[in-house]
């Protein structure tokens, strides 16, 4: 989907509400068999708003109670539990915390589907530097080497969303590198036909071809030990799509990965 109509010429930066991409982002969350044939876009928007509200009130509420009362049980009655009892309790608390994280990401995914991006001219170079600044402790902890092929062009996009996408890609580039290997990350961009394609290349573990599309699905994790819920790339793809762009990956196991995002240029 590459519709990206801004109303900036008409005055205030009103953005055409991009209903098809909202439906797409909802469908991306579902396995193919469960994908609805959404005829009535208005209804699907209402459905999403209802789901979002239900998650906030009906799901996260009881989850907070599981977490809070597990915590109170450990703090106040921990002494009367034997080690196995404590272990069970910690598993319950851990599961509730995990579920809360999943719910938060799911809410974010749904909210992002109905929010409108606020596109302005964004310097990819400045955005990359800001994100690397936030990741600096992880970069130095892993002694990672990061190369930016300057200059990086500007794109027409929502600056907050762009930073979120870049943070996700760079976080992955640092994370999925075997212990003992120095992470090497290369960032470069090229422009063509009204779009900028930004590449983030790593020397990580790589992704088998059969998994390359699925990694952009919600909650897919191929490494059980890695932290997070597996929503990051789905959120990144959704944000790109909502801004009229797209995402992709080229990779071979053991050969690193090259993730890319495409966003409209500023012209």
């Amino acid at each position, binding site marked *: 989907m590459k519709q990206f109509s801004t109303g900036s010429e008409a005055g205030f930066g009103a953005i055409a509400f991009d209903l098809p991409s909202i439906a797409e982002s909802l469908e991306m969350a579902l396995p193919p068999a469960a994908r609805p044939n959404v005829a009535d876009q208005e209804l699907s928007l209402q459905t999403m708003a209802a789901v979002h509200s239900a998650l*906030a009130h009906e799901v996260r*509420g009881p989850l*907070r109670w599981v977490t*809070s009362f597990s915590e*109170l049980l450990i703090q106040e009655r921990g002494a009367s539990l034997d080690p196995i009892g404590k272990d069970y309790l910690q598993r319950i608390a851990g599961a509730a915390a995990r579920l809360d994280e999943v719910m938060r990401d799911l809410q974010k995914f749904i909210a992002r589907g109905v929010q409108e991006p606020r596109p302005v001219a964004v310097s990819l170079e400045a955005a990359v530097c800001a994100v690397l600044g936030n990741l600096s402790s992880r970069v130095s902890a892993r002694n990672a080497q990061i190369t930016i092929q300057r200059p990086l062009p500007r794109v027409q996009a929502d600056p907050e969303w762009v930073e979120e996408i870049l943070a996700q890609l760079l976080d992955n580039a640092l994370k999925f590198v075997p212990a003992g290997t120095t992470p090497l990350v290369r960032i470069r961009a090229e422009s063509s036909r009204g779009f900028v394609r930004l590449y983030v290349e790593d020397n990580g573990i790589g992704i088998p071809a059969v998994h390359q599309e699925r990694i952009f699905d919600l909650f897919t994790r191929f490494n059980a030990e890695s932290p997070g819920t597996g929503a990051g790339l789905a959120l990144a793809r959704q944000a790109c799509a909502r801004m009229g762009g797209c995402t992709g990956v080229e990779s071979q196991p053991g050969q690193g990965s090259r993730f890319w995002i495409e966003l409209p240029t500023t012209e």
Partner: protein
Amino acid sequence: MEPSPRPILHVEDEANDIHLLQRALVSAEIWNPVQVVKTAARAFAYLRGEEPFAKRDYYPIPGLILLDLTLPSLDGFEVLKWRQSQPEIRIIPVLVVTNSQQPAEVRAAYEAGANGYLAKPANFNGWLDMVKAIRVFWLNQNVLPAPPAPRVLTPENDVSRNGSLARFSLERAAV
């Protein structure tokens, strides 16, 4: 003698959240009396001093209201709206304590006169931090308006022989 701490009115229908708040208050050693009401209608009755909360010496005007937005029947927004129409009630600070952090709801709550908006904490330590913050600012540093003065007794309204409530008003008026 120190005046006894002003009570907190907690408008909340979820038993677990009522328990967690009270447990957090005890852990934080906050001894203000807490009156819980589970519906908007009972909040109105309490604040108006109507039955079953008619005895003001047992059910004094609160110094702070904690208000959930999702209540059965009339919701928290209705409580906020009603409060704005009551000169003696709208001077009592209200903090919304609720599940949603939807920008539209936050905005609507402030527009309806809320003095603060707090998300229900995700864990018990979060509840503890929240009540401690409330104590520091709302119960200790913040200066509250005085509760409405007791009615001055005149022969017409002096019903002191008839009950403890009026006797209480008489004692207060004499101070």
